[in-house]
């Protein structure tokens, strides 16, 4: 009990210290400097209506490349650590009839909804990451409903790699055409879609990149789920 009390006292001290720091950053006040620039120029410079998406993919696209890499590392790492010579699923109970029929019916719609989320990332809230997660949820449903279901591993791994390469390639094309890595060549060099801001065919390379990210995130998260669910069997 003594140790626990000690831990709580330490935590309270840390909390007090943090709160003192935070008191210098008042809540609800306008502190924007760079943020103001983004809000004022986002439509002309990127063609996206959703400023968050524009920042994630275009202005701070480098972060997102790193983020995609982090998820790639996680899926690779989980695959490396849970690697066994022979693996199989160990689920014993088949899903109920409701779950099975529901999954069969819903699966295409869930995937479609995920695709909708990432394709419209520059117009509505959402984007590649929630969209990809939705697609992974569809595969999760399949895993839960059917005992013997498995994703096509080789195809998924290759898709994952190709989508990642596609993202870097889009960046490298930007380096070749516009002179900067991850340069938005569709919007700024080719001037495509300038007259339909707020509709689907605008936003420069944002829809392309978000589609690649959505596919990549979907396959990666499904791969993680697959690795988590299967156990190694000794021969």
């Amino acid at each position: 009990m003594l140790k626990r009390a000690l831990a709580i006292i330490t935590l309270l001290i840390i909390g007090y210290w943090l709160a003192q720091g935070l008191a210098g950053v008042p809540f609800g006040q306008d502190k924007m400097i760079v943020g103001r620039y983004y809000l004022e120029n986002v439509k002309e410079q990127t063609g996206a209506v959703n400023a968050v998406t524009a920042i994630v993919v275009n202005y701070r696209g480098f972060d997102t490349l790193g983020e995609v890499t982090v998820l790639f590392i996680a899926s690779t790492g989980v695959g490396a650590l849970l690697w066994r010579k022979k693996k199989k699923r160990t689920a014993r109970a088949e899903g109920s009839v409701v779950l099975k029929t529901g999954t069969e019916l819903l699966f295409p719609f869930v995937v479609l909804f995920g695709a909708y989320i990432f394709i419209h990332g520059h117009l509505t809230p959402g984007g590649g990451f929630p969209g990809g997660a939705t697609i992974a949820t569809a595969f999760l449903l399949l895993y839960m409903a059917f005992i013997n279901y498995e994703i096509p591993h080789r195809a998924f791994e290759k898709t994952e790699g190709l989508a990642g390469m596609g993202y870097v390639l889009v960046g490298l094309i930007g380096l070749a055409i516009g002179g900067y890595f991850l340069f938005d060549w569709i919007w700024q060099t080719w001037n495509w879609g300038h007259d339909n801001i707020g509709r689907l065919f605008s936003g420069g390379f944002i829809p392309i990149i978000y589609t690649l990210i959505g596919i990549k995130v979907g396959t990666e998260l499904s791969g993680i789920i697959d690795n988590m669910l299967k156990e190694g069997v000794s021969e």
Partner: protein
Amino acid sequence: MNCITCIEYIIVALMILSAILAVEWRDLLAATVGMAAVSLFASILFFMLQAPDVAMTEAAIGAALSGAIVIFAIKRTQRFETEEEEKPGWWVRW
């Protein structure tokens, strides 16, 4: 104090309550549900803070998927915490 403020207070209180329960429950499955609840309440707060993108991502990834993978891990290991002795901080010892 208007209505919106009081909803904020209630949601923050619920969020902290589920965090405490998630930490204290011995049954890890229940603790995982508590963790997902923290994420869900946080996602409501994100929505109230005018961040719909973040709210969606947190609900899809933070609540649903990370909850799911924790449950898979529990399925492959054990469900209940064993009795513990008082020796904090295993990970700072050399």
